[in-house]
């Protein structure tokens, strides 16, 4: 075990897979010589050279188009979209081409590629550089969707995504890049499609993703310490495939659930999980599932407004405490 930052785990996972398989190539804006604007890919250019680590023009459609074309013809590209907000300039390649081609061609085409992107707010970048857009990807049939919350999961899930035969949208959390954690040495692979119970508990369950996981854990600790309430926290990690087994199992322990989402209110993954629980665990429900989300607004930039918009430890704590009252 080594202690790595979340950003270091990104580079380590890519390096691990590039060493293993020379068909893995990596492309994006300023990802090579400069090591990425979030310094998440430092060292890869020096290690693997400009043929495998390619700096691109500012042309997201070309980046993802190139990744797709290469994936269809034998490579396993990893592409970076610098901020997840920029998916909006290349959404066609993601949602209409990459996601649909295997199905439309009756399986003639396989699409083993990964799109890494920096997602989420909390860094005062304003409404066009702070969005949490996991639900954009989750809505589109044909995409796998992963969002890790710890350095170990970054390494294990990113490596697994690169080995997967299907297209994976890999959301890295901007506000977590500097966070540290223990990461297994050597080859480390996690399984896509698995949620993780990061804190056990039987009074209620909180489902959280990415930056919301440490917040949910802190809120749960406070509920334990101040109110003697024992709340489980599930790191959803994989939105597609979705680990409904773990989600339902954990729910049935208490019949009370909360979701904590960074994305704006409407049509988030929280709504999906809430609906699924209602549909499939209705008779075990003790309380309605409560969604804690960013309000349905563009994200403001100033410290106090942004902090008020994103679900905070306080808000999670208060909502759960009041909900269980």
């Amino acid at each position, binding site marked *: 075990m080594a202690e790595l930052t979340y950003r270091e785990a990104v580079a380590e996972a890519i390096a691990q897979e590039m060493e293993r398989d020379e068909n893995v*190539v990596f492309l994006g804006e300023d990802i090579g010589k400069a090591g990425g604007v979030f310094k998440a890919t430092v060292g890869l250019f020096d290690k693997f050279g400009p043929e495998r680590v390619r700096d691109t023009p500012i042309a997201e459609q*070309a980046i993802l*188009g190139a990744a797709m*074309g290469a994936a269809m013809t034998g490579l396993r590209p990893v592409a970076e979209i610098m901020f997840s907000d920029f998916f909006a300039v290349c959404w066609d390649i993601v949602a209409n081409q990459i996601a649909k081609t295997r*199905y*439309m*061609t*009756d399986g003639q085409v396989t699409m083993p590629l990964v799109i890494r992107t920096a997602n989420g707010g909390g860094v005062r970048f304003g409404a066009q550089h702070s969005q949490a857009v996991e639900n954009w990807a989750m809505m589109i049939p044909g995409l796998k969707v992963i969002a890790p919350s710890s350095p170990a999961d970054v390494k294990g899930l990113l490596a697994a995504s690169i080995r997967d035969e299907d297209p994976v949208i890999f959301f890295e959390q901007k506000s977590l890049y500097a966070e540290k954690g223990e990461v297994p040495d050597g080859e480390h692979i996690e399984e896509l499609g698995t949620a993780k119970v990061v804190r056990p508990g039987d009074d209620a369950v909180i489902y959280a993703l990415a930056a919301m996981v440490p917040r949910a854990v802190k809120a749960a600790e406070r509920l334990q310490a101040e109110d003697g309430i024992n709340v489980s926290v599930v790191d959803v990690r994989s939105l597609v495939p979705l680990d409904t087994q773990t989600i339902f199992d954990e729910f049935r322990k208490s019949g009370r659930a909360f979701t904590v989402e960074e994305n704006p209110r409407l049509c988030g993954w929280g709504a999906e999980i809430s609906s699924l629980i209602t549909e499939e665990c209705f008779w075990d429900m003790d309380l309605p599932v409560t969604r804690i989300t960013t309000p349905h607004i563009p994200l403001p930039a100033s410290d106090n407004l942004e902090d008020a918009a994103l679900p905070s430890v306080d808000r999670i704590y208060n909502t759960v405490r009041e909900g269980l009252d």
Partner: protein
Amino acid sequence: MARKAAKSATKSRGASAKASSKAGAKTSTRSKSRLNDDIGEEKRLKMFQLQLEVRHLEKRAHDLFLQNLVKGTSHLAVGQEAIAAGCATAMRPNDYTFCTYRGHAHTMVRGAPMTAVLGELMGRECGLLKGKGGSMHLTSVEHGAMGSYAIIGAHLPIAAGAAWAAQYKKTGQVSFCFFGDGTTNIGAFHEALNMAAVWKLPVIFVCENNLYMEYTPIGDVTAVPNPAADRAAAYGLESILVDGNDADAVYRVAYAAAEKARSGGGPSLIEARTYRHFGHSRADPATYRPKKEVEEWLARDPIPMYRARLLEFGVKENVVSGIEESVLKAVDDATEAAKESPPPSMELLDTDVWADGGASWRN
């Protein structure tokens, strides 16, 4: 015969130019020298056959549409066959084709069986995509036909990506990408051209300028007279404009571009001027086009022109008409076979979203 080199010498296309090759040997010396120039008789007969195959299959598709056997939409390339035939003949079997919804021609000329093409238009189990894709998405990976893309511009960067893989793996493959004049005004065109040029990718962008986007003349919406050729310089590329109704001319520029690409010289952008005889899609009577313009272009129909050239170069009438008959028969056979095929099995609904063959988004 080059046809043979293609992975699948398709059975459903009965026509063979083998016999004709011998017939060609008997022509007069002068004609022979013209016939056996840089292109040669074998390739010429192939191009004639390919053009005919496209023409008759497309017309059949139109008939089937009128009989309500082809559903949804379809975009015919009747009138534009010389481009598909010329380029395919310049390709090697393992080169890649990326095309659009107007892609029956490009998919067929790589060798996709007629029955499977018609079957897909008719939504039958024998279809290239078993009915899951439809007319706008014909794909035959085994023949190098890497897909038909229905969103304008999308496949240009994708074709560049396939070229990138070929470059990286040093396979010598070239990626051909076909699109229309209207496509030159969308963002993806620009991004793909620039990146392909900077990375010196072995990709050939072929703009089939048929003078119209859907119903709007291309000149009404484009800042330059030649939508592709006048923009080549913006990517450091040579301006190439070719008569898209002359398969020989298309073959020559495509062959040269492919040679250049294979030898590391980077991409090319070719503009081929042509005209579609039908409307934009199944429902379009194309009344927005001036009568005189239509007449002039019909008079330049690539197939009679090419037929005349073959005869002029000394190919015997019976060889030419032999090809014509066999193509017609092949189209008839394919039509019957496709008609007999059942609709897709309902199990297909939930297959192949994922590489494991399934469609489940949960455990």
